[in-house]
């Protein structure tokens, strides 16, 4: 309420009405002015006080919220019901309604007082204080990355396999080259102690050598390799009959 407003009674009333939190609030305030326990207030007196207030406000042509007027109408009804006994009593009767009104006022009053007590407690930040500069607790989530040697080298192998140029990748050309045949035949001869059949130089028919075409190329390359090794004096060849097994062995002293 603005205390600076020139304080005629009418102004005061107006300002107070503005300050109420609804008609029940106004009613509660009027009830408290009787200065008795809410259970023992005079309801008729309370109704009169309320109606007087509203009438004065209307006389001053103050704008009142509709619910104040509704409350006034209801209170007027209650008052008449209380004063004028009727033959056919409605249910609930006026005494019951009056009791309920009292209960409403008590409830609101209880909450108003509870609010005041709540606000008056030792409040954090006003009366009691938390630590001013807490260090704070931090949980740093740190990733510990896992990777082992096998993953690493395998990954590199994967990259290498993937990144090889693929231009020569034609199936028909899956062959054993002469170079590799020479290397293979000469290294095998190096450890052989007896004659070896040329066909034994061809890799076993398994895994990547399972392809018969590839094995034929290997046989051919091995044959040329055998001739080459013989030519350079590193091996000798023998064939007992035409189309018979071609055998070779390392030349001693080579």
């Amino acid at each position: 309420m603005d205390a600076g407003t020139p304080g005629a009674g009418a102004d005061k009333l107006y300002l107070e009405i503005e300050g109420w939190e609804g008609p029940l609030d106004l009613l509660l305030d009027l009830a408290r002015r009787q200065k008795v326990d809410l259970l023992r207030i005079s309801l008729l007196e309370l109704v009169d006080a309320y109606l007087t207030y509203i009438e004065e406000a209307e006389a001053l042509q103050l704008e009142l919220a509709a619910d104040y007027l509704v409350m006034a109408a209801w209170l007027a009804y209650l008052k008449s019901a209380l004063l004028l006994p009727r033959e056919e009593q409605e249910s609930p009767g006026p005494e019951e309604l009056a009791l309920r009104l009292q209960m409403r006022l008590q409830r609101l009053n209880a909450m108003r007082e509870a609010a005041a007590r709540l606000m008056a407690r030792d409040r954090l930040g006003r009366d009691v204080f938390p630590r001013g500069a807490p260090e704070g607790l931090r949980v740093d989530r740190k990733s510990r990355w896992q990777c082992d040697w096998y993953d690493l080298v395998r990954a590199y192998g994967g990259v290498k396999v993937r990144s090889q140029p693929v231009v020569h990748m034609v199936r028909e050309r899956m062959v054993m080259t002469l170079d590799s045949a020479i290397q293979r035949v000469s290294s095998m001869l190096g450890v052989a102690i007896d004659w070896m059949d040329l066909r034994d130089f061809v890799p076993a028919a398994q895994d990547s050598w399972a392809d018969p075409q590839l094995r034929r190329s290997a046989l051919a390359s091995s044959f040329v390799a055998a001739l080459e090794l013989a030519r350079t004096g590193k091996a000798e060849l023998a064939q007992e009959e035409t189309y018979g097994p071609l055998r070779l062995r390392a030349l001693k002293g080579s």
Partner: protein
Amino acid sequence: MTEIENGVPDDIIRAVEATLFAAEEPLTVDQVATHLGLAGKAADVAPAFTRLQRHYEGRGIQLVRRGERWHFETAPDLAHLLRREKEELRRLSRAATEVLAIVAYHEPVSRAEIEAIRGVQTAKGTLDVLMEAGWVRVAGRREVPGRPVIYATTPAFLEHFGLESLRELPGLEELRAAGLLDPVDEDMIGAALDLENARSPQTVRNGDD
């Protein structure tokens, strides 16, 4: 108790003390246990809290429990020495303080129920202010026609107002005993508006209860 009062406290007590002291917000026993690498062993850690609480009794600092959470704060009787003028608490309107009290004493409670107690419509902003302050939260919906939103208080409410639990609300038992916290299902204003039909079936039923 003696090893706390007179001697060196044990490791768990020291660790709990340091953790709560350094924490930026109140912590539950579980949270402290987890922080100390004792997750799931709250039962081993819990006694340290009550021992610490007793140790700090009467000192300038207290260890307090608010709901499930614990924190250190200054002793309330020193308020006059510590109060800082510059730090103005948010001033709550009368409407807001009333609504807060109604939520706390009746929770969970719908807006219609709050309005029934106050006999006036509650501005949306009032609940917003309380939620912004962190004291009130939406606690779901009531499973009745219209499924109204219901409100309840938060742990921060207990912390701010220094309550171990809602059971500590001032006068709670008396109010309950006087029937002043019973559910309000009667809208007097509505009944008044409905003057001619005022003696509606519901009202009669209520009267018969």
